[in-house]
């Protein structure tokens, strides 16, 4: 994808066609069809918060969607470098920062989503694997009550019409 390889080169190469020096590096995996940086902040935060409603898949989708942000290092406004962070901290001591879109870099949301997804997948898969591999030897007669195909038969879920 050319977009992430030479973001800066583009602004230098053809001055007669580029009207403004806004770096055209897209934070979403869709590239130019996806969100702009301002929208990405709100979307990332929203996905992160909704993921807490027992939706680890939403966290995974969040990480997938904002993959360029996680991967590359050239998003100065979204992923502040160390200098920017220290500047921001000093600044915030002197002035109360309003909640501007970049006062809280949204990389936190994405990293949080990734961590959340990892943790919940670990929990779920360990439980599921224990259940399926352990089977009746481990659980006893409770296994038959919990396994899905028996439960579906008992509740008549597949005899639908």
């Amino acid at each position, binding site marked *: 994808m*050319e*977009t992430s390889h*030479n*973001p800066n*080169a*583009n602004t230098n*190469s*053809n001055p007669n*066609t*580029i*009207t*403004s020096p*806004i770096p*055209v590096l897209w934070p*979403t*995996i*869709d590239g*130019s*069809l*996806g*969100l*702009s940086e301002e*929208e990405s902040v709100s*979307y990332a935060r*929203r996905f992160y918060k*909704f993921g807490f*409603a*027992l*939706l*680890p*898949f*939403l966290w995974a*989708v969040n990480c*997938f*969607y904002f993959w360029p942000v996680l991967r590359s290092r050239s998003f100065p406004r979204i992923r502040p470098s160390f200098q920017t962070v220290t500047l921001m901290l000093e600044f915030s001591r002197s002035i109360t920062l309003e909640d501007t879109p970049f006062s809280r870099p949204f990389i936190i949301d994405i990293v949080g989503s990734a961590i959340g997804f990892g943790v919940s997948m670990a929990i*779920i898969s360990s*439980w*599921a694997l224990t*259940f*399926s591999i352990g*089977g009746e030897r481990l659980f006893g007669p409770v296994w038959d009550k*919990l*396994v*899905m*195909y028996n*439960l*579906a*038969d008992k509740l008549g*879920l*597949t005899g*639908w*019409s």
Partner: protein
Amino acid sequence: MAENKKPTSILESLGEEIVRIVAPVSICMFMVVILVSILNSNSSSSYATVGSIATIAYNESSSDTSWDKFIGALLNSLVFVAVITLATFLMVLLFYLRCVKFLKYYMGFSAFVVLGFLGGEIALFLIEDFSIPIDCFTFLVALFNFAAVGVLAVFMSKMAILVTQGYLVLIGMLVAYWFTLLPEWTTWALLVALAVYDLAAVLLPVGPLRLLVELAISRDEDIPALVYEARPVVNHDSNPRDLVQRRMRVWRERNETSDNRPVAVPDSVSDGNVVSESNVDEIETSNSYPIPIISTAVRAEEGEVHPIRNAELLVPLIDNGGNVQPHGVAEASGSNENLMLEGIGLGSSGAIKLGLGDFIFYSVLVGRAAMYDYMTVYACYLAIVAGLGITLMLLAIYQKALPALPVSIALGIVFYFLTRLFLEVFVVQCSLNLLMF
């Protein structure tokens, strides 16, 4: 930087667009065929039917005579089409009374039901068939995740294009599988009736779908609908411009230029997804914006001009109450049986849009063919893809929204019966006698 990008040929641009719409249709059909082969080979009778609106008039049983089945099937399909017409008119009425929010939430709810319940049922069938030792908690969590993210992806918010497209194909697959559980004669009669209905509803001036789109265009609003939009093909020959500013602009102009002036709109951007689902009918041909790619190829002249994408008609994009937040998603319309508006058209970025109803009924046809034999599957698949190609060509010629069902369904049905009656005998005899050619 390298300035020498070679000009994109017509094959790359046009072929790419066609492939991007044929590929998901093929994937949907393929998955339905797989589901049908897996799940129906184990089931006892082919009359394990599904009671629904589609069988309300007559429920087929294996002991009836052919004439009874035929009449029953006709009645069923007439009832079904009548229900769909009513539901669409109801939707037109609601849209006219500006209850768009209600429609949107109803669509979200029905998508959740489809993904959750139908998806759950089919997952349970598969679990029983393969005896997968999954427990109920994991299953419920997984199902809930699947359904919730699906609703978000398709309706509520903008998400990765791949995720949205994948969920649309999945919804089409689930509903199509459910429809293949109908009795056989009813299915065929239903397909024919729906093809005729689609033709009427989209092309006649009194058709509900056409009314809907006219309303939407006249109000510059968005229709809630489930529509699959292919990713627009990036034109490498356009001038790269600043994307961010242009993106948020919402075009409101009506198409005063109702004929096609082949003037390409230069380098403005559009969100491929933001499209207003000025979806099915009417003149929803797009304003072709070549999407600027940050390529280093800068060309002053136009380069390859694609006939479809150069239509000068502007699609009124959405702007829900002045909020320029792009809604990537299309909301569906209608009840569960009537989820999608059929039809094919062009989105604002020149990408082709295909209603989800088309996905569903193509897959129903192929699924039904799979219940007989794989030979009919191949024949019907080729017929449907040919029909889709013809429809796309017509779309390029007429530059307005067209019904995508009639041509493909007609070809598919014709070839199904021809294959079943004539080709099969021939091929089987050849194979038995080891005659290859």
